[in-house]
């Protein structure tokens, strides 16, 4: 629709994105230590991990909003650390990103938000833009909200509009940062099916960050569990469920105690409550 170029027909399990020996620190916190993972072309890859392990950070590194301290990210065999700004922007046109908080442009209506990439990058006529935008809005069930402003939407609606915007350029790679948070069961079902359809019908490679083990089981072809800056486990969701490793079992079954710390790094609880850590 939006782009007329022919889409690459995926060969099975070909590497599309490869993260190699990645190190990244935020302040004094070492977020990734020698992280390696690959994302297969034309598949849905899920990235799981407890809150604060750096899933959003990983997406930012993959899209080069952040630059790693060490290591490389390859997209289609190209080291994105070596691209200049123009090439980077060209690459980014192939991305559709759903931000964790939607990130709609607050000074435009819902319609204009979804139309924004089209208006910036294509010379489509207004009629065609209208057609494409309404189709995408319809797909997320918000065609009726086209004239509303982002401030008037609920969190879940905002995220669905952002999803429509991420899809509007028919990207090669769709990146979803927590697409299922704050959705009611009906919308959730619709969005899950939409994610699946984008992938199956159009062959779009998808990266899905989520905590929702159940939804991931349903859609993902492959998944990674990140813990302590490393890949703790990987494989198809079925494999993951079968895995006996403590870490995986804890995450998949939602247990508080186990090798994955539920608590953010902190001084000893008892010591702190008793005030002994104060000098």
């Amino acid at each position, binding site marked *: 629709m939006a782009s007329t170029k022919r889409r690459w027909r995926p060969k099975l399990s070909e590497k599309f994105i490869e993260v190699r020996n990645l190190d990244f620190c935020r302040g004094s916190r070492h977020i990734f230590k020698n992280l390696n993972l690959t994302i297969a072309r034309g598949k849905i890859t899920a990235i799981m991990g407890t809150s604060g392990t750096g899933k959003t950070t990983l997406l930012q590194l993959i*899209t080069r*909003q952040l630059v790693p301290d060490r290591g490389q990210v390859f997209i289609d065999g190209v080291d994105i650390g070596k691209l200049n700004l123009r090439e980077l*922007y*060209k690459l*980014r*046109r192939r*991305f559709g*990103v759903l*931000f964790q*908080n939607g*990130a*709609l*442009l*607050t*000074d435009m209506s819902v319609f204009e938000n979804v139309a*924004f*990439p089209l208006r*910036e*990058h294509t010379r489509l006529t207004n009629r065609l833009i209208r057609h494409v935008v309404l189709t995408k809005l319809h797909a997320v069930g918000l065609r009726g909200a086209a004239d509303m402003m982002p401030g008037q939407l609920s969190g879940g609606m905002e995220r669905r509009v952002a999803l429509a*915007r991420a899809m509007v*350029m028919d990207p090669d790679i769709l990146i979803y940062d927590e697409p299922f948070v704050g959705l009611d069961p009906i919308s959730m079902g619709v969005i899950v099916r939409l994610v699946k359809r984008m992938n199956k019908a159009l062959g779009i490679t998808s990266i899905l960050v989520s905590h929702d083990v159940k939804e991931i089981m349903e859609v993902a072809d492959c998944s990674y569990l990140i813990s302590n800056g490393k890949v703790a486990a990987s494989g198809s969701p079925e494999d993951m469920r079968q895995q006996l490793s403590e870490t995986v079992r804890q995450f998949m079954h939602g247990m508080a105690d186990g090798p994955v710390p539920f608590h953010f790094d902190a001084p000893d609880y008892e010591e702190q409550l008793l005030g002994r850590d104060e000098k």
Partner: protein
Amino acid sequence: MLREIYQALLEFVRTFGALQLFFLRLLRHSPFVFVKRFRLVVFQVYNTGVLSIVLIVVCGGFIGAVLGLQVYSNLKRFNAEDTVGLFTAFALAKEIGPVLTALLFAGRAGTALASEIGLMKATDQLSAMEMMAVNPIPRVVVPRFLGGIIAVPILTAIFTTMGILGAHLVAVELLGVDVGAFWQQMQQTLEPSDIYEGIFKSVVFGIVASLLAVWEGYNALPTAAGVSRATTRTVVVTAISVLILDFMITASLL
């Protein structure tokens, strides 16, 4: 102590350098935005202009009226009331118009620009644009910058005009200065160069006020506190810069 002063100085030089680079970056994108994205610029002129116009009209009128009163009461001692128009016009066109307009602009439109850009940053809107392969500098920052540059001289002209009308109201209508003398003295003595000085200043102040507003917004920390700090800083920094520059320009033109 000395070390802290040194650090602060270093920090200042660094920030100032970064500001200049930012300015050059905006200038580099300006011709393109001005030609290809003219609608965005016009919208921003409208936006900043409309934000400020009521303020400018009211303040201009009252400043002119006060000037008229003060100048009149002084000149009366020398029996030179006829020159009230001349003196107020002189002060307004050369000094008060450009300076006060820039300060009012910073307080009204500058803060709005800074907080708007800062909030867009804090809510990931600028990152989202970058991810959609849209550079936020030409899309968001430059139109606001150019809009401000265009708006300030226009607002200055309105301010000065309102000021002279205010002085006219007080001097002629209230205090009974002769209408003919009021305008004729002004026309005869005010040189074009005086007007040009005012226009020059308003253009410089327009650039400074717009630049500082978008700079503070674009470099705000992406949090609520960061944005509010940026808004405050916009007013403070613009006020200081405008007053220092005003002195320097006036001195160099004498």
